């Protein structure tokens, strides 16, 4: 049995790759060929769908919009969470435990509950259909997550380092920027990864808060499906292209995946 | 109980070792007597843990054979060798009670229930843990947990040897002494073959009947603590054992006279012509200070008063040269060092040269 242990992860990975393979398969077929029948490989290999997406602004702007608000959200979440996580780690203050718990509950907020209220809130602020709206909305669950993860990493750095820096005459901002941040570099990386992940994949809020200008790729895809019938080849290609940013990010943090999860603080 | 024989054992962590330097453990040929208490002493990375793991079966050696009594166990798995091992930090089963922890190795071997009870009670008694039998093992102190680790070896009557891999590392200093004493007591009582790996010379010298000193993968000396102190076979042993370590000064040897520190000293032994790097090694305990100018010209840099004795730090011709003086001794100004010739060891390329008694050829 020991010998064949590798079978388990292998079978699982095959199971995972099959739908993705199928998507890839269809992305290189014309819609007619797809609807015409079932085949493992494209009979007529075509990159027409990809070309369409990469040249049609309605399509590629969807990606640009999505990446924009995700990047905005990651930057905002991490930079706001850093001082807060530092405070939670190093200080006791009035109401700190309750505040921390309350923050965590927002990670558990059902997006469905917030879809309509967010729509009204951001409309009333004149931010409907902007990237910043989605970026801020995603902060609802990403900032608590960021604070939680960073607090764990910051607590792993001994307080003595802070104290030594003060004795050496560093002001707080300088100490934070020059000394502290390099020490928690991997923590910031892990946090940024998770913020990216949860903002990139979330669709309900992103769709509810946008219309044309900041339309995420998800909305573009569903619109295509409903109005012009099932343009399957195009949809498949669009789908494949959404997998790529995720794959790139995973590749870059591959060494930290186990470490980040090991913090036990996803 | 068993006699353990290392028959030309050598080990490399590389898949295809070619040269001497590829071997983490150089060839070693040795017999560990049945019932002996041995220490494996050496600095970090010298190969002692490798050797221990070969004996316990967690590692299969690249070369050589391992025998327990007459049986070749070189490739046998650990559980088939009947050894017990205590690791650097306490390894216990958190979810079980103390008694359950001790019963575990017996239960796995299908020992009958009442036999298990008997042995566990005995072990608990021996280790002074009788009152805690039904406590969850998780809540105990570090030294108690190490006792449980040890106990899992003691409950198995047929255990061939008990191996210790720096077991006192995480124990508080004041408990270290207690545990060491307990180990010696156990050895006297049960007579197990015990092999104790450490980098702390005090632990080694107080625990063991015989100490195996290792350096860079090689065994440099095996001997009783006295032998290691009086006649270190290697300069490294001289440095490592004793606090402060042996004084080492380059010298020239001619017949029965040796020249170092600008002076010539007569020896009680004779030496042939020696090639290579020759040095003398003299323990600070055998260095006296004289105010009359006889002996070696040293310049004293510092005197450390430890209470029970004094360490005089000095320099002889640019080399450090220390002396250990009894409590209350005076350290004269401009003193010189006098050395007992019988205590001067001569080293050629770091290895001890014995020389012959005067009067013999």
């Amino acid at each position: 049995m020991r010998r064949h242990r590798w079978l388990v992860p292998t079978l699982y990975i095959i199971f995972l790759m099959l739908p993705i393979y199928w998507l890839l398969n269809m992305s290189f077929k014309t819609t007619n060929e797809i609807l015409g029948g079932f085949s493992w490989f494209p009979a007529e290999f075509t990159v027409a769908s990809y070309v369409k997406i990469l040249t049609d602004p309605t399509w590629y702007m969807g990606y640009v919009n999505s990446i924009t608000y995700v990047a905005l959200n990651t930057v905002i979440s991490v930079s706001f969470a850093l001082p807060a996580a530092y405070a939670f780690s190093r200080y006791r203050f009035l109401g700190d435990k309750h505040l921390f718990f309350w923050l965590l509950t927002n990670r558990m907020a059902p997006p469905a509950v917030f879809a309509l209220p967010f729509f009204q809130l951001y409309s009333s602020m004149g931010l409907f259909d902007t990237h910043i709206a989605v970026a801020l909305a995603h902060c609802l669950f990403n900032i608590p997550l960021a604070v939680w993860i960073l607090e764990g990493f910051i607590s792993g750095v001994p307080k003595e380092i802070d104290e030594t820096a003060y004795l050496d005459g560093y002001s707080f901002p300088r100490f934070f920027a020059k000394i502290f941040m390099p020490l928690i570099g991997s923590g910031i990386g892990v946090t940024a990864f998770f913020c990216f992940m949860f903002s990139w994949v979330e669709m309900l809020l992103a769709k509810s808060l946008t219309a044309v200008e900041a339309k995420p790729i998800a909305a573009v895809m569903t619109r295509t499906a409903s109005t012009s019938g099932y343009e399957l080849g195009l949809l498949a290609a669009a789908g494949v292209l959404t997998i790529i940013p995720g794959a790139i990010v995973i590749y870059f943090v591959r060494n930290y995946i186990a470490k980040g999860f090991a913090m036990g603080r996803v | 109980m068993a006699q353990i024989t290392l028959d030309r054992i050598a080990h490399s962590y590389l898949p295809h070792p070619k040269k001497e330097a590829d071997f983490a453990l150089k060839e070693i040929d040795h017999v560990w007597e049945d019932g002996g208490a041995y220490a494996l002493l050496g600095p970090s990375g010298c190969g002692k843990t490798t050797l221990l793991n070969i004996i316990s079966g967690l590692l299969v050696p690249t070369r050589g054979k391992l025998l327990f009594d007459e049986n070749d166990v070189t490739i046998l798995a650990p559980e088939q060798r009947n050894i017990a091992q205590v690791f650097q930090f306490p390894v216990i089963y958190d979810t079980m009670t103390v008694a359950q922890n001790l019963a575990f190795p017996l239960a796995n071997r299908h020992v009958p229930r009442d036999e298990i009870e008997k042995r566990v009670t005995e072990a608990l008694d021996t280790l002074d843990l009788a009152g805690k039998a039904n406590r969850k093992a998780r809540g105990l102190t570090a030294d108690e947990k190490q006792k449980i680790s040890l106990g899992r070896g003691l409950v198995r009557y047929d255990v061939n040897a008990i191996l210790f891999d720096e077991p006192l590392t995480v124990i508080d200093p004041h408990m270290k002494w207690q545990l060491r004493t307990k180990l010696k007591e156990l050895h006297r009582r049960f007579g197990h073959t015990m092999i104790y790996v450490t980098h702390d010379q005090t632990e080694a010298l107080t625990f063991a009947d015989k100490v195996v000193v290792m350096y860079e993968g090689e065994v440099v000396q095996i001997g009783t603590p006295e032998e290691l102190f009086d006649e270190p076979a290697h300069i490294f042993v001289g440095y490592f054992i004793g606090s402060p370590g042996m004084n080492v000064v380059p010298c020239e040897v001619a017949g029965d006279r040796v020249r170092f520190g600008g002076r010539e000293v007569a020896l009680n032994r004779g030496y042939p012509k020696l090639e290579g790097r020759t040095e003398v090694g003299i323990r600070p305990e055998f260095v006296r200070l004289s105010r009359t100018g006889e002996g070696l010209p040293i310049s004293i840099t510092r005197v450390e008063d430890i209470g029970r004795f004094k360490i005089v730090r000095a320099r002889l011709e640019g080399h450090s040269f220390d002396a250990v003086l009894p409590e209350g001794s005076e350290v004269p100004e401009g003193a010189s060092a006098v050395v007992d010739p019988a205590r001067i060891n001569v080293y050629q390329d770091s290895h001890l040269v014995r020389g012959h008694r005067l009067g013999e050829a």
Partner: protein
Amino acid sequence: MDKIENNKAWFLVLPVLLIVALNAIVPLMTVVNYSVQDTFGNNVFFFEGTRWFEEVLSSSRFHAALQRQFLFTATILAIELPLGVAIALAMPRSGFWASVCLVLMALPLLIPWNVVGAMWNIYALPDIGLLGYGLNWLGFEYNYTRQPDAAWFTIILMDVWHWTSLVVLLAYAGLRSIDDNYYRAAQIDGASGWAVFRYIQLPKMKHVLTIAILLRFMDSFMIYTEPFVLTGGGPGNATTLLSIDLVKAALGEFNLGVAAAMSIIYFLMTLLVCWLFYTIIMQGEKK
């Protein structure tokens, strides 16, 4: 570590507090408002008390959705947790292949949820999808767009495909934290594979597994996009889970009062379970 008592730390926390409060409290207040009011249009509201709550709590539609939700969550927990742990146990402890496995397994976690839904939508189609075609070829009568059972099977399979890797990664991290000496000692003690799992691996994974259970419970309880894109809640109502029902009421039917009341109840349930798990985790960490 010993923390310093300093109320000025509030300044460091203030930005976070403001953003999250804006996003959390203001909308919630809106929801609370709607849940106790009614309107005839023209933005005129009047107080209705607990009418909406009573309506929701007694509505069979709500009960049905709740039942489906619990069934869904229970099923995926029962599958994903053991499966994830089993895979983590079977993975190599370190090395090149371990890295490769982790990267490939993490991939489904980073696919936008609507793409997951769309991908499975096509993948499970009986005539042109690999899964659909394959199942029918094997002799099963499978069409998830028409048969409720097939639809359930598909959304569950999709969720297992999507999220098991999270459990694997968490369990794997927990396993990696176990020092090799524990395994060595167990070997010397003659422990069987099962004993090693029960007495060494499982206890050390308790913390990460609790987090895994918490996350999977919460996320599956709130799930919306993937099943919606896959089945739209159908056929009929067969796979209309709680979130889907809620969004239908709020954005589809504009039945604000009902939707708001349902939201509050939904949120309170989520909070309760969250609080329970949080207490358990924090107890564990204090040790």
